[in-house]
């Protein structure tokens, strides 16, 4: 039968799909579909919602308002204050937690009772943030709070209260109550940084440390030039994790201050919670949520850029 023309067989539907999508993509497809449903759908729905004034009562219709929900935010004092407080919040929390976390991790790394210390330091992280809120509300209580009594006794606290004081610290920083909330967050989440950094420290190459020692580098120099560059990616992960936690943080504030006094602890996520689930203004809430999302994406990209290690081409 040589020499006869073979009419190419028409590909079946499945064969065409096989051609269009490589094998590994097809394997991932179910997971991609699930992810799309649980992330993309709400994402687009949020954008749609943010362009509407949602109906409150049965029989009413949502009203399309265009970008009015976004425009009105520029005039919303609580929103603008919330953005400012949020920046203060994650900058202070992140700085203190990173500093304490890295310091403690370096201190206990390789110690005789390292495991015991790890367990002790991890305990606060096991406590739910809402419980931390209740715990600190007792500790700060003027009537019987141990922290209040201690800070007052040593003369550190200049006000007669912690949580009811809207007085700015040093005249330009956020309020005393705000720092009360920050302290609770630091106590609750520094252990996470300790844990992540400790894991990173275990992977610092011993040969590099030994070489540094043999070259006569002191502890500080070794830390700066060998240890920290080696745990850079770990620090990035810890920083991004804590940042993302901070920008959606409301649990402890909800219990401790409800955003008061005088809006001095009302960081943006708490305002978002109020708009959406106390005033039930879903359209306005979606607009705030969308802006918060853009802010998170922008900041995450910023973090990645700052921490990105420049690859060095091998010599020779």
């Amino acid at each position: 039968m040589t020499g006869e023309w073979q009419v190419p067989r028409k590909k079946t539907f499945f064969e065409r799909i096989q051609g269009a999508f490589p094998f590994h993509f097809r394997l991932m497809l179910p997971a991609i579909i699930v992810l799309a449903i649980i992330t993309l759908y709400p994402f687009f729905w949020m954008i749609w919602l943010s362009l509407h004034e949602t109906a409150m009562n049965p029989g009413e219709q949502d009203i399309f308002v265009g970008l009015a929900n976004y425009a009105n935010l520029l005039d919303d004092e609580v929103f603008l204050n919330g953005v400012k407080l949020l920046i203060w919040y994650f900058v202070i929390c992140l700085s203190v937690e990173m500093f304490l976390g890295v310091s403690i991790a370096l201190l206990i790394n390789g110690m005789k009772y390292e495991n015991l210390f790890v367990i002790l330091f991890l305990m606060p992280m096991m406590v739910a943030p809402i419980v931390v809120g209740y715990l600190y509300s007792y500790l700060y209580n003027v009537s019987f709070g141990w922290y209040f009594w201690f800070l007052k006794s040593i003369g550190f606290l200049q006000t007669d209260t912690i949580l009811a004081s809207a007085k700015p610290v040093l005249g330009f920083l956020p309020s005393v109550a705000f720092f009360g909330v920050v302290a609770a967050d630091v106590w609750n989440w520094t252990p996470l940084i300790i844990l992540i950094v400790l894991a990173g420290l275990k992977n610092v190459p011993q040969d590099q440390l030994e070489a540094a020692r043999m070259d006569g580098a002191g502890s500080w120099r070794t830390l700066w030039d060998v240890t920290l560059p080696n745990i850079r990616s770990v620090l990035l992960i810890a920083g991004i994790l804590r940042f993302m936690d901070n920008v959606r943080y409301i649990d402890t504030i909800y219990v401790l201050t409800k955003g008061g006094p005088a809006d001095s602890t009302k960081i943006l996520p708490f305002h978002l919670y109020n708009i959406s689930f106390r005033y039930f203004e879903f359209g306005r809430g979606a607009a705030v949520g969308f802006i918060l999302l853009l802010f998170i994406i922008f900041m995450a990209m910023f973090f990645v850029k700052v921490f990105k290690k420049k690859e060095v081409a091998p010599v020779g």
Partner: protein
Amino acid sequence: MGKISRRELLKGLGIGSLALVGGHIVKSPLSPTQLAYASDDVKWKQFKGSKLVFMSEDTPPTSAIKSKIKSFKDLTGMDIEIIQEHLDIVSEKVGIDVRGKKGAYPVYYSQDKPIGAPFHAHAEDLRKYEADPTFPKVTDGVGSDVWLYRFLDVTGRFYGEPKIAAYPYDNAICVMMYRKDLFEKYSKQFESEYKKPLRYTENTTWKDVLDISKFFKKANFPDVKYGLALQGREGWGGQLDFQRVCYAHGQWREWDFDDWTGSRKPGPCKWGDEQSIVCLEKYKELMQYSHPDSLTNDWSGANTAYITGLAAMVPNYGEFAAVVEDPKQSVAAGGRTAYELCPKGDPSWIVNRGKAVNATNYGIGGIAINSYSKPELKKAAYLFVLWATSYETMMMVLKDVGGTPDRKRVFEDPEVKKAFVRETAPMKNIEPVEMEKGNPASRVTKVPLMPNGLTYGPSLKGILPPNVVVGPKIPKFNEYIQILTSEVQKCVSGAKTAKEACLAIKEKTDKLHGVK
């Protein structure tokens, strides 16, 4: 023990999953006509085997209802799951549920303003069930006049509509609680300084309260540090706290519409007028001499300051009497506390030529039926609503575990009447508690059987005109109180003057209501 068949297992799973979304229903085999002519006993049992879910605030009355729920189960054969949460969480969960038209909570707690005002349209009209002959009758019925003064209007009626969205279920009426023992102990010293007796009566004004607060704070006595504990926390607690001062002076209110039914479009508010500014200035002064946490305290925080002996006075809600009178929890127990009407307005603080009154406000918890639940489930829910708000249930929970009844008849009971006054109040024996170490005279061996009863005298006076202030019942109440309390806190903290804060409240509130 026999094996469970596949059919039984599936049936069980089905019922279980239905229970997760608001309960399940087992219909009566009787027709509506048969039920209408049946006895009350049969009517109560028409949904035997069904299950309901009740979402409630974690109030003492709901805890009391929960502890007595067996009598409901015995009466109806129904089961009920009672979920108790903080009021804000109840509002959030009910709000999400009704806005999503899910009906997961067939029965829910409906505080008049935080939940009723925004969501009443999603509740069933209870008049429909009242007219239905298939439901049993309860003592006195459920008409307007069986409840305390206009309580049904407060919880059930909104914006001039005839619909009844909820029945009164519990209440928290504000009274002044004060340390009678400390007042007697330091009377002479106060009198020599302020040239007036250290006494609290229904004629005591807010200015007198300020003087007493100044006296205790300056004196710094070993047994009490502050004269007053307030509750200026952001939200409803703060709004109610400040409202008492405002209304006491010239019956000042933020709007002139009828407070009992409220208004959908309240129009321009009166914040920023002379009287509101004076009231805020005076409130700030009161705050300065109060317990230092007063700006962040709600009712529970203020109560803590009082029962730990840090404050000599606290305007607080009657339900807290149970804790105040418990010597294991409170240093103010054992007859040391007296209860009186909230302070009167001081004539020298009134600039609007209005009347000075003992401004009293409250939160009346209603009980409502979710309009998105299934029709038969709603009917079963009405049986629970009837039972929970009946005279017999209110009486039972009051006498056995403490409650805050709303029906007039309860207060006509001779034993309850005796509970109004400490000297005649029925008492119960307790394990002796020594209030002061090494002082046998301070030993408490008996406590009132119905401690809340001690607040009923001033409460029943406070809820009548001209003292009572109930508003503002507006759809955007929850956002309004945030605006209000946040600006009040800015003034108290010194970030704004009273005038600036009042004008800011006006600007923001008017904007909220579309007033240009």
